[in-house]
Structures are given as C-alpha cells and as structure tokens.
C-alpha cells in the first residue's frame, strides 16, 4: 500500500506539470462538448482527435484521450436535462427525471446533482482503480497464451451476454470484427491475407477508420437533423444549488450508483449505458416514493449519472491491468497507446510506470476540472446547444475525413471509413450493435496469436485450455454465461436487457 502511495505521488508530480495539466484540461473540455452535442459520442471524439496526439508523448496522449471519455459522461447530462435529448448514450436515463426537474424550474439543481454525483463517483472509481489495478496486473503476469485466449473469449461472451441486442447477433458482429482484424500480414508466418494486392491493406485495417466510420459517420447518417431541433431550457446560476431535501434524496443513490457503476464498468460490454439503466431501475425499486420517478425525482438523476461515471473509470481497470478492452472506447485507447509504443497490460505498470501513474493521477485532477467546468460554466455550455445540428454535422464529417487521413496519410483509410459509415447505418437499421465489431477488430491479433501459440505449446492438444486452472476457470465462466443466455432465450423471459434495449431505442 505504501508503494502504491509513493507511486501515486510520483504520478501527481507528472500530472501536475503544466503541459500535462493543459492536455487534461483540453481533454475534459472537448469531452464535455462531445458529451453535450447530440450525434457525436466519446468514441468518435476520441477517434477524430487521435491524430492530434501524435505529436505528444504517450502520457499526454492518454491523459487527453481519457479526459474526453470521462468528460463526455459529465457533458451528456447537460443536454439530457436541458433539452431531453441524450447528448451521449449513457445519459438516456437522465432525460426522464432530469428534464422533468428542469420543467419544474429545477434545471440548475438537476445539473448540480448530476455534476456532484459524477464527481463523487468518478473520484471513488479512481481510488478503487488505484488500489485494484497494480495487484491485478501482478496476477496477470502469470497469464500465458492459454489464459489470454480464455480471457479474450470471456470478454467476448460477457459482451454478448450484457448486450441489449441478442447474444447471437452480438457474437456475429464480434466474428465479423475478428475477420476484419485478420486482414494484412500474418504475424507468425508473414503470409498476406485478404489484402487484394493493396499495399495499404498490408498492415491490416486500422481501428480508427472503422471506429470513426461506424460511430462517427454512421451516427450522423442515422440522425436526420430535423429530429434534433429542440427547446433549450436556460439554467440560472443562482438556482444551481439544490435544496436540503434534494441533497438528502440524492445522497444514497450517488453512493449506490458509484459502487454499482464501478462493478459493471469492469465487465465487458457497453458498461456506462448498462450501469445508468440498472442504477435507475435499482433506485426506483428501493425508493419510498417510486411514483415520483418520471416526474422529477432527484434520485433518478443522481443514481444513473453517478453510475455512468463510475463505470467509465471501472473500464480502465481491465484495460490497464490486463490489456483487455471492455468496449470500443477502451479499445481505441489501447490502440492510441500502441501507436506511442506503449502496450497496455500487466507490463504497463513496471515498464511504463510514469505513463500509468501519471494517467491515474491526472484523472483525480481531471475530475476536479470537470466539476469546475460543468457547474459555473454551464450557462456558457448551454449556448453551444443552440448551434443548429445542420451546421454541426458537416463540421463533424470534415473532422472525420481529416482525422482518419492524418493517421497514416492514406486515402484508402478514408474510403474504409466511408464504407464503414454506410455499414454502421445499415447495422443500426437492422438492430445490430456495431460495438462488438470494433472490439473483435482490436482483439483479433492477440486472440489469434494466443490461440495459435497455445496449440503450438501443447503440440495441438486442446486440453491445454482445461488443464490450466485459470484458463479452465475462465472457460467455465463462458459456459455458465452461455447457459444463462440459452435459458433466458428458451423461456423467452424479458429481463433487464430487454428493457435496456427499449430505453436506448427511444433515443432520437
């Protein structure tokens, strides 16, 4: 523990350097804007700004990109409360009671509860991350290829199980992602695969064009501008402070949302969306006045907003300690670290201690910055919501093209992005979630390498996965999840995942 504190202090000495503070601030500011603006989410924000980080060192890059991620969780609530449009998917549940509070003249109080809840949950998440990540990474150092193969399989099955669409569809998308990840040179034998003699495909299909296409352009194509015209309720600064009764109502939901969100954040899947949904359901269940939900209950804002922030921090635990992306955003962040020559995973803490601890410390600072940005300056940010979407999305398209091109100076990447945009539009129409595709693409090289190395190690004997305790335990977990999903499908039971699908489908 003492070692952790020393390392954290070293991290603060890095995070508090003026240059790093500036990039943390920039990330938080862009994240807040990205979270607020409908039609652009944290994933497209991070992907578009990825090339901008090429001139920075790895610490500055990850500080800025992660700031966009957790900053977007703060910003999303502003649009939900003031316009009843979720700026970001995780803010869907905040629309219900947040906007109802705003209609009652309590917009300021709702924003304050959301910001303070987010701050507490975010800080709680970082404290647990600080404590949990180093021992988890030490444990993961014992992982060999069979354990990694099993771990990646668990990640995929968990993602499919937690998905609001069907398990089969999610796994199908992940398989398509895995196949896309196998384009290019085979790392073990040097064979060119599925590259159609295009030199640009020799290095494989990059995560940036796919992610920006599916989530940036795809989201724009699925969001006709006419649907996003709405009235913006302007909050007054003097009404920002909630009443004592509102604080009392929000306190326990913030605490519960923080714990629930962090736990769900560690599990692969769209954790920040799922956590806010489950937190809302939990708060409604335990409330003494469930009839108030939907009519402006402070608990309906406090719980989901805390949960989605804690989840976004929780997602960093498997990413940093195991090198396992739990969703497309952490997948892009892993990609960003790789571009800077840093591999996320168990070796990160030992080999790049400054990057790890500087990043962790910057999140403490970033959360404070976000509280300052999202409370006194909320009136200023509300003005951004007045920019018509019809002027905004051409700008986003321009940044998508420029951002993707700048990664490799490759026009083929831009074409891939455009194709993926159309694919993303089609997938949304037919009820497929594009997130597992990105996850499959990112884990494909590691999955293939660990599976083949495991078979080489065992001389072609599949029993290697069952004879090693950690791998066998992880595969048993896969089997349990598949069994639970099968029981749920056979009995046609409508559980929380069905209700989550309904809630997210209501997004404009």
């Amino acid at each position: 523990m003492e070692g952790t504190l020393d390392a954290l202090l070293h991290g603060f000495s890095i995070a508090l350097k003026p240059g790093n503070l500036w990039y943390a601030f920039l990330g938080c500011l862009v994240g807040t804007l990205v979270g607020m603006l409908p039609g652009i989410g944290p994933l497209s924000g991070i992907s578009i700004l990825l090339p901008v980080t090429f001139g920075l060192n790895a610490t500055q890059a990850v500080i800025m990109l992660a700031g966009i991620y957790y900053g977007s969780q703060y910003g999303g609530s502003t649009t939900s409360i003031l316009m009843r449009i979720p700026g970001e998917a995780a803010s869907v549940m905040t629309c219900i009671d947040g906007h109802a509070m705003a209609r009652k003249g309590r917009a300021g109080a709702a924003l304050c509860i959301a910001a303070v809840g987010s701050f507490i949950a975010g800080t709680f998440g970082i404290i647990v991350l600080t404590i949990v990540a180093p021992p988890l990474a030490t444990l993961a150092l014992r992982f060999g290829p069979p354990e990694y193969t099993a771990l990646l399989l668990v990640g995929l099955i968990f993602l499919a199980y937690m998905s609001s669409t069907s398990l089969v569809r999610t796994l199908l998308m992940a398989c398509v992602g895995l196949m896309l990840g196998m384009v290019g040179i085979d790392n073990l034998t040097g064979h060119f695969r599925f590259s159609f003699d295009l030199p640009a495909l020799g290095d494989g299909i990059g995560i940036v064009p796919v992610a920006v296409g599916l989530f940036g352009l795809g989201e724009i194509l699925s969001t006709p501008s006419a649907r996003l015209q709405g009235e913006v309720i302007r909050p007054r600064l003097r009404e920002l402070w909630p009443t004592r009764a509102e604080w009392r109502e929000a306190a326990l939901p913030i605490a519960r949302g923080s714990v629930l969100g962090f736990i769900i954040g560690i599990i692969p899947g769209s954790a920040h969306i799922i956590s806010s949904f489950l937190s809302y359901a939990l708060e409604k269940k335990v409330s003494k006045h469930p009839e108030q939900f939907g009519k402006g209950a402070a608990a309906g804002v406090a719980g989901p907003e805390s949960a989605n922030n804690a989840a976004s921090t929780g997602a960093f635990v498997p990413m940093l300690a195991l090198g396992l992306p739990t969703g497309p955003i952490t997948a892009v962040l892993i990609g960003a670290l790789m571009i800077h020559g840093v591999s996320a995973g168990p070796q990160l803490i030992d080999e790049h201690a400054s990057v790890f601890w500087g990043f962790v410390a910057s999140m403490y600072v970033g959360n404070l910055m976000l509280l300052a940005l999202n409370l006194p300056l909320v009136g200023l940010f509300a003005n951004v919501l007045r920019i018509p979407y019809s002027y905004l999305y051409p700008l986003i398209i321009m940044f998508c093209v420029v951002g993707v091109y700048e990664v490799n100076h490759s026009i083929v990447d831009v074409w891939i992005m455009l194709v993926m945009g159309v694919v993303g539009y089609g997938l949304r129409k037919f009820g497929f979630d594009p997130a597992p595709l990105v996850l499959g693409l990112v884990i494909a090289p590691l999955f293939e390498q660990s599976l083949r190395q495991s078979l080489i190690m065992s001389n072609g004997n599949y029993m290697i996965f069952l004879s090693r305790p950690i791998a066998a335990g992880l595969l048993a977990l896969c089997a349990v999840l598949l069994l639970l999903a099968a029981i749920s499908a056979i009995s046609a039971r409508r559980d929380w995942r069905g209700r989550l699908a309904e809630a997210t489908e209501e997004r404009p």
Partner: protein
Amino acid sequence: MLIGLAVLALGSDLPMGRLSMPGAGFVPTLVAVFTILLGGLVVIGGRASPPFSSLDWSDSRHAGTIVLTTAIGVTLYTVVGFVITMGLLLLALLVVAERRNIVRATVFSLVIVILVFGLFDKLLKAPLPSGPLGF
C-alpha cells in the same frame, strides 16, 4: 453467412497447417465457420423479427446525399487539396442536403476551412493535403 463464405473462398489458398503448428489460414477459417453458423441462427430467428417493409427508411435519402457528397469529397481530397475540397464539401452539405441560405453557407464554409487549415497546418504542424495552388 455470405461474409463467412466469402472469407472461406478467399482464404482457400492460405496454408491451414497442422493443429500442432497452425498456419495463416487456421483462425480465419475457424472464425468464418462460426460466422456462417451464427448467421444461420440469425436467419432462423429472423421469423420473429419485424418484416423488412416495416423499417423506417424515411432518412435514407438524406443519408444517401451525405454519403454521395462525402464520396466526391474523398475523391478530390488528395487531388485538389484540403481547402478547396472541404470548402466545397461543407457548402454542398449545407446547401444541397440542408437547404440552407447559400450566402450564409458560403461564409460559414470559408471561415471554418481557413480556421481548421490554420489549426492543423500551422498550430499542430500536421500537414494537410495541398492542391495545385499550394493549399
């Protein structure tokens, strides 16, 4: 299912290797087979889904305009450079797709393109493609 079959066909010339030494075609074949199986399950489960005709395609015209305009922009991007391509792309999207006032749209496009060019080219030192006129 079609994607899986295509991968199987395209990867038929890749060496499969042995179980004790899997080749470059081993994992793609494995994943393609799973894709075909899962695709089959989606097709079987498709009966429970709403019919194709019930999907809302009212936004497809708008989406098509954006895709077409962007495709033209991508084609021109490395040929005529950032400033001209992006200026025209913004203008086309605002005027054609969004039916905005042409004068306002022109001013908006010009200002934005010059600002972004300055940001990337001068501030971030990330060179953008330049056309025959040097920008």
